[in-house]
């Protein structure tokens, strides 16, 4: 009741001050966003979808930012009423979970409160938010970024990470320095070379009986980034001190990761190669943290992030404690006027990624295993070879054809005993313009495999009225074996300016949802999903 009084007073003040021009706010910027996602569950025995105690789930986020001159401030209020099924139960109730104040100048930035930051590619430290996966490991503390001399950028951070509606116990602190070498030499070259180093440490008190468990864990990283015209090469090496924790089965072995990225591109042709070996690199603010909680660093799965649902049935989940592998990408445009290019040109892309377990030798000491740096075992986690050809035939018709061959070691990647899943998939995607504003998109897909859920067939029809409206009907069906089920969905979306509304009814398969190579288990779901986002 008291809350209502406060609200009433504030609302009357809001309307009562319409013409007041507070001097100190002149020239200030105010912006924000609101997002709500709601689910209505229904029991659906065919796909194993159950209904939680509360039949409705609702996640809500209100973000408000303020800036004036060099000053910035902001906050985010979140309400889980209750949290959507499948998200961490640590998100519960409602609270202001993020607030900050800062100074932003060209060569100096200070943030006090919650902040997001990343050192290099994130292998030693990345604080970020991904609402779809329910990840928010923002740090509550102090962040400083400055240039003492122009070519040197220094970042320093200190604080505790967000865990659900609170912060975790571990304290993290870090420093990163990046040197623009050609900038320092005042060279006029168009090439770029930076050399950088980071240090991140975590402290978590230990109250158990073992004298050997380290309370402080430190990770160091050295990296460079070199670009010369069409060619680029960057690399990062990270080492982490002994960090026994739940997810590495309390191994005392040091962590080591080496990442090498190279690229070569011309106008109309590009390729890149990423290689990575990573060992014991799960780095969290607490020893007992699980799922996506309290991640200090970011080790993404370096494989193709597919756009079609049939190709996302078996997504790769990174194995940051024991993985060696890489990927190659190739992109090309066949120019118009040629035999393959015809009138509009043809876009071709191909990707191959493969990941293995490292070759390790079990030991009886606290490290648990030993391994040569580049030794690869015979245990393959995953491979994905895929090709996509995109062709515009006329002003009215465009087609995209995709083929993928995916090897998925379900036992290793999902932790339960399964057969290996070897699949071949094709997706044909047609976009047809009925006229300038009305379009029809048809997606037909098939996945063939002899294990797990056996073969799948999928179809989707999407009708769009530019620029505001789309609606769709889709189905994904595993038509063999005894686990057959139709995963049907239908819905629509309206977007006008900064406002988006969408409503969907249907089924979602139990499985793994991955965004940016970080994955989360999602339960089977059946029912309605309604979402609204607005920015202002």
């Amino acid at each position: 009741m008291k809350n209502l009084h406060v609200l009433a007073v504030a609302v009357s003040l809001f309307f009562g001050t319409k013409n007041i021009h507070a001097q100190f706010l002149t020239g200030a910027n105010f912006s924000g966003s609101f997002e709500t996602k709601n689910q209505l569950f229904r029991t659906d025995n065919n796909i194993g979808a159950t209904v939680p105690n509360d039949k409705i789930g609702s996640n809500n986020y209100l973000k408000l930012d303020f800036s004036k001159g060099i000053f910035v401030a902001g906050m985010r209020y979140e309400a889980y009423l209750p949290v959507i099924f499948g998200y961490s139960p640590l998100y519960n109730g409602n609270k202001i979970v993020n607030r900050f104040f800062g100074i932003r100048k060209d060569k100096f930035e200070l943030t006090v409160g919650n902040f997001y930051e990343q050192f290099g590619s994130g292998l030693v430290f990345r604080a970020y938010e991904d609402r779809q996966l329910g990840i928010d490991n923002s740090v509550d503390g102090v962040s400083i970024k400055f240039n003492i001399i122009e070519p040197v950028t220094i970042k320093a951070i200190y604080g505790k990470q967000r865990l659900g509606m609170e912060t975790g116990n571990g304290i993290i602190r870090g420093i990163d320095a990046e040197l623009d070498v050609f900038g320092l030499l005042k060279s006029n070259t168009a090439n770029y070379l930076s050399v950088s180093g980071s240090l991140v440490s975590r402290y978590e008190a230990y109250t158990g009986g073992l004298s050997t468990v380290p309370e402080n864990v430190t990770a160091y990283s050295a990296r460079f980034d070199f670009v010369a015209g069409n060619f680029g090469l960057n690399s990062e090496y990270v080492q982490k001190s002994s960090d026994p924790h739940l997810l590495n089965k309390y191994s005392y072995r040091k962590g080591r990761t080496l990442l090498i990225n190279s690229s070569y591109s011309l106008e109309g042709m590009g390729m890149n190669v990423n290689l990575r070996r990573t060992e014991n690199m799960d780095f969290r603010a607490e020893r007992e943290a699980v799922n996506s909680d309290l991640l200090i660093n970011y080790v993404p799965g370096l494989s193709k992030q597919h756009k079609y649902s049939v190709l996302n049935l078996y997504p790769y989940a990174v194995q940051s404690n024991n993985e060696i592998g890489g990927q190659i990408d190739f992109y090309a445009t066949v120019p118009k006027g040629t035999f393959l290019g015809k009138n509009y040109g043809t876009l071709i892309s191909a990707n191959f990624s493969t990941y293995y377990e490292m070759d390790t030798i079990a030991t009886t000491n606290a490290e648990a295993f030993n391994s040569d740096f580049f030794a690869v075992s015979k245990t393959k986690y995953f491979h994905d070879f895929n090709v996509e050809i995109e062709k515009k035939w006329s002003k009215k018709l465009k087609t995209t054809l995709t083929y993928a061959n995916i090897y998925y070691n379900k036992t290793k990647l999902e932790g339960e005993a399964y057969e290996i899943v070897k699949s071949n998939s094709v997706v044909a995607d047609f976009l047809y313009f009925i006229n300038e504003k009305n379009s029809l998109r048809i997606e037909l897909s098939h996945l063939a495999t002899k294990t797990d859920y056996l073969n799948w067939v999928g179809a989707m029809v999407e009708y769009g009225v530019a620029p505001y409206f789309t609606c769709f009907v889709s189905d994904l069906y595993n038509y063999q074996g005894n686990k057959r089920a139709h995963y049907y969905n239908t819905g629509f979306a309206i977007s006008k300016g900064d406002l988006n509304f969408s409503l969907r009814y249907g089924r979602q398969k139990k499985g793994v949802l991955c965004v940016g190579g970080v994955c989360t288990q999602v339960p089977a779901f059946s029912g309605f999903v309604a979402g609204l986002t607005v920015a202002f």
Partner: protein
Amino acid sequence: MKKSIIVICLLLLVLNIVSAQTKLPGIKVRTLDGKEVLATEFSNNGKPFVISFWGTWCKPCLQELQAIADHYTDWNSESGFKLIAVSTDDAKNSAKVKSFTRGKAWPFEIYTDSNQNLYRALNITNLPFMLIVNAQGEIVYSHSGYVPGSETEVYKQFKEILEKGSAQ
């Protein structure tokens, strides 16, 4: 709960007095060659320009940018149309952005915002997200999502903003 409501109401009060976000914030993004650039330095020789936030994994983003790429030469020579494409790909895909965009022969100016600092500062929650900045550096149009064909609406808006600017 009570504290939360008070804070929200105070901020609504502020909203009543001040203007909404109209300029690009002073946040750094990187060029495809790794160099840092302030978003406030984005420009188009005194003309309006379009900024599109996208990701290599986002199908509607790629549909939209490819559709604009198909018209780009015509639009650019007709009215000086310019599009700046800001990739929000993180470390999973950010190393691919240069070869990806050059392989597609996209004619846009491209930047990477790999920890989504600019994306977050502009209160974007969905991709693709498109905004138009006028000659005075003010954000005057924004739109999220893509429906095939809506690129012509973006161009229409661009031309209207261009005409408004030259009429002043």
